[in-house]
């Protein structure tokens, strides 16, 4: 209960919390605290603050260091570079869609648009695979890149339910499945998931994606390039 004494004692609570009161003052204040829940609560709260004081170094109470003036602009420039790189990468992966739009009304059948772009530099070109015959509004594409360890997969998905877990696998010529990892699709995320599988691209017959309760498979037919597309021009 708040009493008239409070005003008298209140301003000693800080010194008390720091252990700075004389024995007499302390005894007097503690007698007051016995009967005053409000002051007790205040003391407790101040004592919590007091326990933090030893963590600070009073030599460091001067003005805090400020970042260099141009740091903000440098950060924006870095992010701008990242954005451009991402868009460039995105376009490399997505250009197949321009050819796929009209054919997407079919139900389950899957048609792969395989495109050779040259490059790759490891004996076999990277391959762009578009999943077609997908539900309306859904887009899926993959770029497969051969490596000594197996195959690197850049997977692009959009339009499915946000949060959907996608499990990607490659199927070998002999039908064996090789897992390539998982990712979660989020709305608004137009980045590629970068995955890898131990299966050599030269032995890869198909790529599959389990997304929710559906599985989408696109054949990777390296000898049957349906359409030739000239490699995208680099951004200037």
């Amino acid at each position, binding site marked *: 209960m708040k009493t008239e004494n409070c005003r008298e004692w209140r*301003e000693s609570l800080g010194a008390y919390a720091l252990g700075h009161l004389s024995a007499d003052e302390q005894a007097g204040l503690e007698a007051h605290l016995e009967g005053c829940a409000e002051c007790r609560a205040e003391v407790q709260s101040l004592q919590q603050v007091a326990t*933090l004081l030893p963590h600070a170094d009073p030599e460091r*109470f001067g003005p805090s*260091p400020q*970042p260099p003036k141009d*740091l903000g602009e440098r*950060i924006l420039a*870095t992010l701008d570079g990242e954005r451009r790189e*991402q868009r460039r990468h995105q376009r490399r992966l997505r250009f197949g869609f321009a050819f796929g739009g009209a054919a997407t009304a079919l139900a389950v059948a899957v048609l792969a648009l395989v495109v050779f772009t040259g490059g790759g530099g490891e004996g076999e070109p990277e391959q762009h695979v578009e999943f077609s015959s997908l539900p309306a509004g859904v887009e899926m594409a993959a770029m497969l890149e051969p490596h000594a360890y197996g195959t690197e997969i850049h997977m692009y998905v959009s339009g499915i339910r946000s949060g959907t877990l996608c499990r990607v696998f490659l199927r070998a010529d002999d039908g064996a499945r090789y897992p390539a990892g998982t990712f979660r699709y989020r709305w608004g995320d*137009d980045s590629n998931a970068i995955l890898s599988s131990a299966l050599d691209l030269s032995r890869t017959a198909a790529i599959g994606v389990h997304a929710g309760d559906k599985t989408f498979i696109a054949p990777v037919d390296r000898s049957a390039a349906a359409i030739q597309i000239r490699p995208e021009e680099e951004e200037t």
Partner: protein
Amino acid sequence: MAAGALSRERDVRDAYAAHAGELYGFAVRSLDDAGLAEEAVQETFVRAWRAGERFDPEIGSLRTWLFAILRNVVIDLGRARSVRPRVGPEGGIEPSVEPLDEALLSWQVEEAMRRIGDDHRRVIVETYYRARPYAEVAEELGVPEGTVKSRVYYGLRALRVVLEEMGYED
């Protein structure tokens, strides 16, 4: 990607204006190196931008999120640095840096002390950190001893408010 917190350049500018000073202050405090601290702040914004959509304002403030990222960046930079242990003046290996959470706590309390009023900070420094008698401090400041006492009280209260504003949770 980055459709969330920092997707637009304006968001990055706003976040930078609001938080870069504090982030940099903490980075300097924990890394003790202005160059590394710049690197840490830059890396923090890059990671935040990349992971923008993972920011959920219902879980915590942008500031708290940026500090969490910075904390990881500082750990990474600290690790990278510890690969090349510095040799102290005696020729021995310098003791390991204080644990990061302690550095974060120290920085928070120091930053809070910087933000309270000069009068309040002064009496806390004199009576607590320098352990000087209240009477002596009162004389030096030309005020009654009771005033020193009440400034200690209001100073601690102010510190509590600032720490709360900074998101300190015990």
